[in-house]
C-alpha cells in the first residue's frame, strides 16, 4: 500500500464486513454462553477462577456469569455492559437482555448478508421497538388500588423470578420472605435496610425473615447478654490505646516509678474515655475497632454491653436501622445521636451465636437469614434472593405487571408482525426480523426445558392469533398454558428495560463499521 501507516505498530484496524462480522460473532457467542441459563429449567454454570485459591462459583445469574468472563471482543463487551446496567437498574432480566440483543444481531446478520443497509435495519428495529413497547403499555395491568391483588401480584412476580434459580423448589417460601421484606420498606428502594446473613448448615427451607437486625459478633465477656430498651452508641474509635500520633514521640524518665505513673496515666486516659462514653447514658456500645480487655472490663462493670470489631458494613447498617450516628469523639454527649431498639439478645443460629437487635427505630429494617447445605448454595441463594428483592422493590414503585412465560414476547411479536405488513419498503424486513428475534426467547425457554420448541411456538402463535389470550409456555407440564391461571407474572419495568436496552445495544453494534484496536500500552520494565 502506498499510504503511510496511520496507526502505531501493533494497533490493528478492521473494516467494513470484517468488522461487522467480528462484532456479530462476538455478541452472539456471548449470548450463547448465557442462553442455556434462561428460564425455569435453565442450567447452571461453574465459574472457576484462575486466580489464587481457584475458587468455584455455581450460578445461574446472567450478570454474574458475564461479569466474570474474560472478554476481548468489543461488541461482546457492550453486551456485558447492558447486562450490568440491567442488573443495577432493575436487578432481573440480566440474561434475557443479552439473549434478546444476541438474537436481534443474529437476525441483523442475515439481513446484512441480503444486502440491506445497516441503517435501514436500524430504522426498522426502532419502529418495531416502539410498536412493541406500546403493546406492553397497553397490556400491562395495574393493581395498585387493590392491595390484596397487588400482594398476590408481587408473590407471583417473586415466584416467577425465583423459579429460574436454585431456590425454585422452595420458591413459595422465599417469595413470601422477599415480599414481606420489600413491603416493610414501604416504597423505598433502599435495599440496604434488608440484611442478608448466610449461615451454612440446615436446608434452604430453614431460611427465615427476622424483623430487626442481626450482627454476627460476640458480646464481651462478663457483660449482660440481654438488654431491654437499649440505647446504642455506634462508634468508630480506637479502644486499645490513645497514642500521641507524632512520629518518634517518646518519654524519658529516670525511675521505674515514673514509668508506672505513665502507664497509670495511659490507663487513666482510657478510663476517662470510657467514662465519657458511659456518660452518654447508653447501655450498648458498638465499636468498629477492637475493644481491649481493660475497657471491656470497665464496660462490663458499668453493665454495658460492648461489641467489638463490628465490620464497616455492620456498623453503618446498624447506625442506619437504629437511627443513630457513628461517633468518634465523645466530648459532647448532647450532639451525638444515639440509636434505640427494644431488645438486644444473643441468639443461636446453627452452631454460631449472633447478636439480635429487635424493635429497631427504623421499622423497615429486617434481616433474612439464609441457611443452606454449602457455601455455593448460599451464595447462589443470596444472588437469587437479591434479584427477587430488586424486582419487587421496583414493582412496588411501578406497579404495572405483565404475564410471563413468553406471553409478552409473543404478544409483541404479533403486533410487530402486523406493523411489518403495513410498512412499505425494505424496513419491513427488519421489522419482521425483530419479530422473529422476540419469538426466539420462548423458543430458548422451551429448548432449555427439553421440549419440542418448534411445535410449541407454532401452537403459541396460533393461540395468540386469537384476541385476548393468556397463553404462554407452561414449562412444568410441557405445553401451552394459561399464564394468568398459573400465576406467572413479570414486572413491566423489567420487560420494558429488557426490550429497550437490547434494541439499543443491537443498534449500537450494528452501526459499527470499523474496529480499531489500539496498541497496548507498553509496560516499563520495572526491575
Amino acid at each position: 500500500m502506498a499510504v503511510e501507516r496511520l496507526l502505531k505498530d501493533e494497533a490493528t484496524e478492521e473494516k467494513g464486513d470484517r468488522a461487522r462480522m467480528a462484532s456479530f460473532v462476538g455478541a452472539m457467542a456471548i449470548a450463547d454462553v448465557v442462553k442455556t441459563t434462561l428460564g425455569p429449567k435453565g442450567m447452571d454454570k461453574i465459574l472457576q477462577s484462575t486466580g489464587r485459591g481457584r475458587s468455584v462459583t455455581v450460578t445461574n445469574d446472567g450478570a454474574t456469569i458475564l461479569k466474570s468472563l474474560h472478554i476481548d471482543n468489543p461488541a461482546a463487551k457492550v453486551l456485558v455492559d447492558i447486562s450490568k446496567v440491567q442488573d443495577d437498574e432493575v436487578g432481573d432480566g440480566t440474561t434475557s437482555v443479552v439473549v434478546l440483543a444476541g438474537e436481534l444481531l443474529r437476525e441483523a446478520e442475515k439481513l446484512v448478508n441480503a444486502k440491506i443497509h445497516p441503517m435501514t435495519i436500524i430504522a426498522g428495529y426502532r419502529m418495531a421497538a416502539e410498536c412493541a413497547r406500546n403493546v406492553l403499555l397497553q397490556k400491562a395491568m395495574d393493581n395498585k388500588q387493590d392491595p390484596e391483588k397487588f400482594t398476590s401480584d408481587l408473590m407471583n412476580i417473586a415466584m416467577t423470578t425465583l423459579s429460574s434459580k436454585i431456590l425454585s423448589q422452595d420458591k413459595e417460601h422465599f417469595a413470601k420472605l422477599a415480599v414481606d421484606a420489600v413491603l416493610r420498606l414501604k416504597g423505598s428502594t433502599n435495599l440496604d435496610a434488608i440484611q442478608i446473613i448466610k449461615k451454612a448448615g440446615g436446608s434452604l427451607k430453614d431460611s427465615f425473615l427476622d424483623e430487626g437486625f442481626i450482627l454476627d459478633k460476640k458480646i464481651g465477656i462478663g457483660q449482660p447478654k440481654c438488654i431491654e430498651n437499649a440505647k446504642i452508641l455506634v462508634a468508630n474509635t480506637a479502644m486499645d490505646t490513645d497514642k500521641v500520633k507524632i512520629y518518634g514521640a517518646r518519654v524519658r524518665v529516670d525511675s521505674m516509678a515514673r514509668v508506672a505513673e505513665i502507664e497509670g496515666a495511659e490507663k487513666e486516659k482510657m478510663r476517662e474515655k470510657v467514662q465519657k462514653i458511659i456518660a452518654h447514658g447508653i447501655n450498648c456500645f458498638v465499636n468498629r475497632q477492637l475493644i481491649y480487655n481493660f475497657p471491656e472490663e470497665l464496660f462490663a462493670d458499668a453493665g454495658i454491653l460492648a461489641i467489638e470489631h463490628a465490620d464497616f458494613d455492620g456498623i453503618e447498617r446498624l447506625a442506619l436501622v437504629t437511627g443513630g450516628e457513628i461517633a468518634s469523639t465523645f466530648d459532647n454527649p448532647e450532639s451525638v445521636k444515639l440509636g434505640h431498639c427494644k431488645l438486644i439478645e444473643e441468639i443461636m443460629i446453627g452452631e454460631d451465636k449472633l447478636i439480635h437487635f429487635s424493635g429497631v427505630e427504623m421499622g423497615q429494617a429486617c434481616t433474612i437469614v439464609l441457611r443452606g447445605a454449602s457455601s455455593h448454595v448460599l451464595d447462589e441463594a443470596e444472588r437469587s434472593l437479591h434479584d427477587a428483592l430488586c424486582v419487587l422493590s421496583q414493582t412496588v414503585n411501578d406497579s404495572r405487571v405483565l404475564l410471563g412465560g413468553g406471553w409478552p414476547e409473543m404478544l409483541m411479536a404479533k403486533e410487530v408482525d402486523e406493523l411489518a405488513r403495513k410498512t412499505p419498503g425494505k424496513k419491513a424486513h427488519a421489522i419482521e426480523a425483530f419479530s422473529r428475534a422476540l419469538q426466539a426467547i420462548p423458543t430458548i425457554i422451551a429448548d432449555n426445558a427439553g421440549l419440542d420448541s418448534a411445535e410449541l411456538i407454532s401452537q403459541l402463535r396460533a393461540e395468540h392469533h386469537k384476541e385476548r389470550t393468556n397463553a404462554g409456555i407452561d414449562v412444568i407440564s410441557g405445553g401451552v398454558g394459561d399464564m394468568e391461571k398459573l400465576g406467572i407474572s413479570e414486572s413491566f419495568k423489567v420487560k420494558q428495560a429488557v426490550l429497550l436496552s437490547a434494541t439499543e445495544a443491537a443498534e449500537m453494534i450494528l452501526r459499527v463499521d470499523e474496529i480499531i484496536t489500539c496498541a497496548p500500552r507498553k509496560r516499563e520494565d520495572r526491575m
Partner: protein
Amino acid sequence: MAAAVTTSAPTARASSFNTESYVDNKRRDDVRQANIIAARAVADAVRTSLGPKGMDKMIASASGEVIITNDGATILNKMEVLQPAAKMLVDLSRSQDAAAGDGTTTVVVLAGSLLRHSLSLLSAGIHPTVVSDALHRLSLRAVDILHRMAVPLDLSDRDSLVKSAATSLNSKVVSQYSSLLAPMAVDAVLSVVDPAHPDLVDLRDVKIVKKLGGTVDDTELVKGLVFDKKVSHAAGGPTRVENAKIAVIQFQISPPKTDIEQSIVVSDYTQMDRILREERNYILGMVKKIKATGCNVLLIQKSILRDAVTDLSLHYLAKAKILVVKDVERDEIEFITKTLNCLPIANIEHFREDKLGFADLVEEVSVGDGKIVKITGIKDMGRTTTVLVRGSNQLVIDEAERSLHDALCVVRCLVNKRFLIAGGGAPEIEMSRQLGAWAKELQGMESYCVKEFAEALEVIPYTLAENAGLNPIAIVTELRNRHAQGEINAGINVRKGQITDILEENVVQPLLVSTSAITLATECVRMILKIDDIIMVR
C-alpha cells in the same frame, strides 16, 4: 478473543432460530459427564471407610504431618481436590459435618451412587432438569419414610442415647473403647444442656483436652477445668491448693511498660540500684494487692506486648503461696470465666474479691510424661464440661478426639430432634423398597428416574457388607427379601456377619443424621446435574 467465545462461535452461526433444538450439545454432555466422573472418584476414595469394619486412610500432608483417620469429612478436607465438581462433594461432607456431625462418609457415598445412576439416566436421553426434579421429589418422600421409621426418644432414656453414640464410635479406630467413650459423650452433652433452652446445645461448651501418654482407656470426663499446662514452678510455688479462690487476670505482673516509647535514663551507678529496688517494690505491691483479696490461684492471660510474668513476680507469687498458671489464651478466657463463674480482671485496680471464682481443689497432676492442672469442685459451675483424652500416640489421640466429636454431635442431634432410627443399612433398604413401590405409581420419566434412584440407595448396605468382607449381593438380596416381608428393622449385623433385627442389636443412630444425609446428598447431586458448562474466569 476469549476461549469461550472462540469455541462456541461456530455453533452460534450454524444455528438459526428454528433449528436450535438440533444444536450439537456434545460439549455440554461432556462437561456434565466429566463432572459426574470426578465427583464419583471422590466418593470412591472414601467408600472403603464406611461402616464398623471400614478401613482407615493414612494422609500425609504437604507439611509432612501424618493423619490416620476414618472420618469422611477429615479425609476429604485434606485431599485438596481441584476439580470444581469434586470440590462440591468435599463441601457436601463438610456441611453434613456442620449439620449432623456424623455420617460424613455416608453422605458422600450416597451422592456418588446417585450420580452413577443419574449418569445412566442421562445417557438414556432424559433431560437433566427432569432427573433433578425427580430427585427432589424423591428426597421429600425419602425423608417422609425415615420419619415413619423413626422411634421417638426421651432424653431421660440414657441407655438409648449411649447406644446411638456407641454406633457412631463403632466405625472408628477407637471402637474398642466405645463402651467408655459413649456414656462419656452422653454425659458431657447432657451436662451442658441449658434447661431454659432444652433443644439448644453449644458444643463449644464441651472442651476436649488432649494429653499424650496412657491409653484411650484413661480418658475421663472432668467436672471442672483442665489445662494442658504446667503450674509455674519457677520459684517453688504451691502445686496443690484446696479451697481455692481463683482469679483470671488479663494484666501483667511485670515491670511497667507504656504504649508510648519510653526509656529510663540512668546517669550514675547509685541510680541503678534504685531502679532495681523500685522494680522489686512495684511488683511486690501488685502481689500484695492480689494476696489481700484472699486469692490463691492466678490464671494469667498470655500477652504479646510484654512478659506476662517475670521470674521476679513468680518468685513473689510463690512466696505468697499463690498457684500460678500462665499463658492462658485470650479465646479461652470466655470458656474459663463461664466455667468458674467469675469475671476476668483487666487491671490491678479492679482486683476485688467479688470477681474471683471458687473451687474445692486446684492441683497439678502428672499424667504420662507431662503435667496438667485440674480444677475441680467449682462453686456455681457454669454449664460446661471438659473431657481429657489420653492415648498412646498423637495419631490415636487425634483420631479419638475426632471420634469423640462425632459422638458428641450424635448426642446433640438427639437433643435437637428426639428421634432414633435403626442403623446397619436398614433405613436405606427400607427407603429403596418403598420408593421402588412408589415409582410404580408414578408416570412417565419421573417413574423411571425414581426407580433408578431407589436402587442407588442400596449402595449403603452394599458397601457395609462389602467392607465387612461379606458377600454384598447375597446380603443385599436377603435384606430386600426380609424388608419385603415387613421386617422394616432388619439390617446388617456386621459383628455376627448376618442379617438381624438391628434395633435389638442396639445399633441405632439419630434420625437427623439420616435425613440430613439424604437431603444434602440429593441437593448436591441436583446442583451438579444442572451444570452444563465450566467457565474459566478471573
